[in-house]
């Protein structure tokens, strides 16, 4: 039983659970205290100071995000002193922030701009002192604009404590503070995996996905080009959020209709190639088990994860499945199998991917991803960019009627639908293996969390007498723990799924803003609901593989 405490909030006595911060307690009682550095999934930073409140008996204002409520505490969240202070703090931040709101990539969803609107800021007193540092455009995935950075530290927190990739951190001090890699290096010069979780939590436009919308328009506008699009499973549970729907709204049919309206010649489904991945990985696993190959085999779908293991565990690469990701399998198949079937020259084809992921932009231009003789996937748009290009084209998502994917690369068993959530790829591949070995359908897999490791779950399945232990980890901090066990020879797993982003692809760095862990859960629930129907199709996957 949680202990309750009572405190006075703006003159009213209210009751909340002990241990809550003033900010969270106030929000539960209908008072929204402004915040910037605060993020619900992160540790308290208390450096932006816009959440200050008055606590009776304390001389100074206190930051409400870092101060817990205590019994009998008297709190004021709105007084002339607070208003004046918050206004001054905001004005100081604005004086340091380029006034480029109209042309900013975050126009419409910038937290600082929302705060300025809510707080009714009408003028910025004092001198504007904006930096004019060059942008970091060194990677195909992310753009870092140090001039717009408000030094809230959210990116550093996710980079160091969630992903544990340790790239972005706060350097120097006072007016010289900068949040960047060490020695002011570019993202391409350090071991950044381009997962984009920094961009996902940035409240302003200081780090964001590289915008490839113009590239896609150029292809769509070129009458010589046959432009096909593939959509990842995780996009259909998130794209509707870009148009105001609740997190986890499934919008597959509308998504297809919207893409057709943009002018794509064919609207295909990454689920098609995800099925291929399941077959490839399932059979590779079986082969490794039978022939004494390197185990555990680890999944290879997540490009952020691949870049991570290359930088941090290069001696463990033989554990990776040799299967490439569904995005790249699609690209290769589109420019060979489909091109041949449709009677189109591969050089006249343009393949666009819609992905929940910023690292996919990097993956598609890796030099080895040219099996068709051309770059297999030409451009990748994140879910956020898809939202923007649809708005630009005036597509009214809310009134669209549902449409179906095109044949043949829009056909899928549905098994791949669960790819979007953590554990999904492994489950789909295991089901294949199980059916191949036993001829029966795999009963539900019972996952249990690994003790002391939140974010890692494991299960054991009986494969005709052979016990097979499997694990799934999401978020690179968790992946690191699993890899250290594997490296030390202390992991008795046969098969491990690793996804770079928390929650798997549904929590990817290219998903709509506001992707908190609560939102991830909502999306996963929808994926799982879906998966129940999908499991009925899995029997079909097996038969399909024998054709």
């Amino acid at each position, binding site marked *: 039983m949680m202990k309750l405490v009572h405190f006075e909030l703006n003159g009213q006595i209210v009751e909340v659970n002990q241990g809550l911060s003033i900010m969270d307690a106030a929000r539960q009682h209908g008072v929204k205290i402004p915040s910037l550095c605060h993020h619900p999934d992160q540790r308290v930073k208390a450096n932006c100071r816009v959440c200050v409140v008055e606590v009776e008996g304390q001389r100074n204002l206190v930051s409400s995000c870092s101060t817990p409520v205590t019994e009998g505490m008297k709190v004021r969240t709105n007084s002339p002193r607070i208003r004046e202070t918050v206004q001054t703090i905001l004005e100081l931040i604005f004086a340091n922030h380029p006034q480029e709101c109209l042309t900013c990539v975050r126009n419409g969803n910038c937290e600082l701009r929302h705060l300025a609107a809510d707080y009714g800021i009408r003028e910025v007193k004092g001198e504007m002192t904006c930096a004019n540092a060059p942008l970091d455009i060194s990677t195909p995935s992310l753009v870092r604009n140090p001039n717009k950075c408000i030094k809230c530290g959210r990116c550093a927190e996710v980079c*160091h404590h969630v992903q544990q*990739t*340790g*790239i*972005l*951190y*706060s*350097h*120097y*001090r006072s007016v010289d503070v900068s949040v960047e*890699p*060490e*020695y002011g290096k570019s993202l391409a010069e*350090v071991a950044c995996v381009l997962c984009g979780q920094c961009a996902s939590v940035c409240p302003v436009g200081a780090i964001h996905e590289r915008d490839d919308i113009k590239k896609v328009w150029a292809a769509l506008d070129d009458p010589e080009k046959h432009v096909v699009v593939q959509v990842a499973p995780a996009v259909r549970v998130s794209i509707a959020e870009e148009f105001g729907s609740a997190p986890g709204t499934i919008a597959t049919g509308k998504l297809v209709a919207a893409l057709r309206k943009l002018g794509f010649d064919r609207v295909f489904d990454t689920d098609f190639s995800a099925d291929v991945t399941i077959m490839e990985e399932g059979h590779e696993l079986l082969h490794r088990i039978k022939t004494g190959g390197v185990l555990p085999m680890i999944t290879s779908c997540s490009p952020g994860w691949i870049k991570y293991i290359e930088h941090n565990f290069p001696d463990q690469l033989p554990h990776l499945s040799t299967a490439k990701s569904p995005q790249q399998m699609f690209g290769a198949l589109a420019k060979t199998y489909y091109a041949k079937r449709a009677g189109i020259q591969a050089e006249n084809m343009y393949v666009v991917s819609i992905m929940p992921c910023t690292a996919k932009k990097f993956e598609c231009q890796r030099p080895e991803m040219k099996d068709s003789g051309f770059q297999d996937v030409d451009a990748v748009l994140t879910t956020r960019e898809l939202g923007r290009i649809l708005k630009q084209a005036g597509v009214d998502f809310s009134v669209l009627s549902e449409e179906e994917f095109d044949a043949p690369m829009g056909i899928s068993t549905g098994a791949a639908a669960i790819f979007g959530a953590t554990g999904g790829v492994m489950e789909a591949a295991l089901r294949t293996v199980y059916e191949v070995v036993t001829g029966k359908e795999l009963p539900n897999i019972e996952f249990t969390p690994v003790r002391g490791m939140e974010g890692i779950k494991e299960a054991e399945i009986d494969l005709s007498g052979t016990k097979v232990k499997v694990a799934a980890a999401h978020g690179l901090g968790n992946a690191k723990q699993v890899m250290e066990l594997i490296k030390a020879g202390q992991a008795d797993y046969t098969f491990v799924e690793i996804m770079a982003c928390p929650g798997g692809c549904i929590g990817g760095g290219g998903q709509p803003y506001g992707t908190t862990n609560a939102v991830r859960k909502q999306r996963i629930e929808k994926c799982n609901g879906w998966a129940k129907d999908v499991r009925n199709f899995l029997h079909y996957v097996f038969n399909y593989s024998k054709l």
Partner: protein
Amino acid sequence: MKLETINNNIETIVKEKQALLQILLAVQDASPENYVSEDSVNEIAYSLNVSRSRVYSTASFYSAISLKPRGRHIIRVCINAPCENAGKQEILAVLEDQLGIILGQTTSDRQFTLEGVSCLGACYASPAIKIDNTLYGDVTPESVITILQEYRKEAEDVDCSAS
């Protein structure tokens, strides 16, 4: 700096992340150029199992740590009010003239770096300067020249015995 040297430093302090600042200071003290090099930042990060970025963050925050090569001797001149009133301007002018550099620079022979500090804790003996770990109080334009000569002589002796 060699990994071995750094590891010895780390072992002599405490092998904890909290000891990062002490490690940085120890590594800097052991460096002939009085600074923490990029290689050292990387090796410290590896040894402590923290990110390079975190090591750089701490190193760049504290003015006691230099990320750029400095002279063999650091001359710190107090630039705060008591020393200012007691004749710091004159002392600084002599130092700059003698060394041929201005505040913040290093001599071309890499013997001396001239730095300004906010307080040396020696207001009772203002104007004060500190060379490495030795404090010189109540300095005059004349005594500063004598002090400098001692360090120069010492440097020449070291160079002679080395060759």
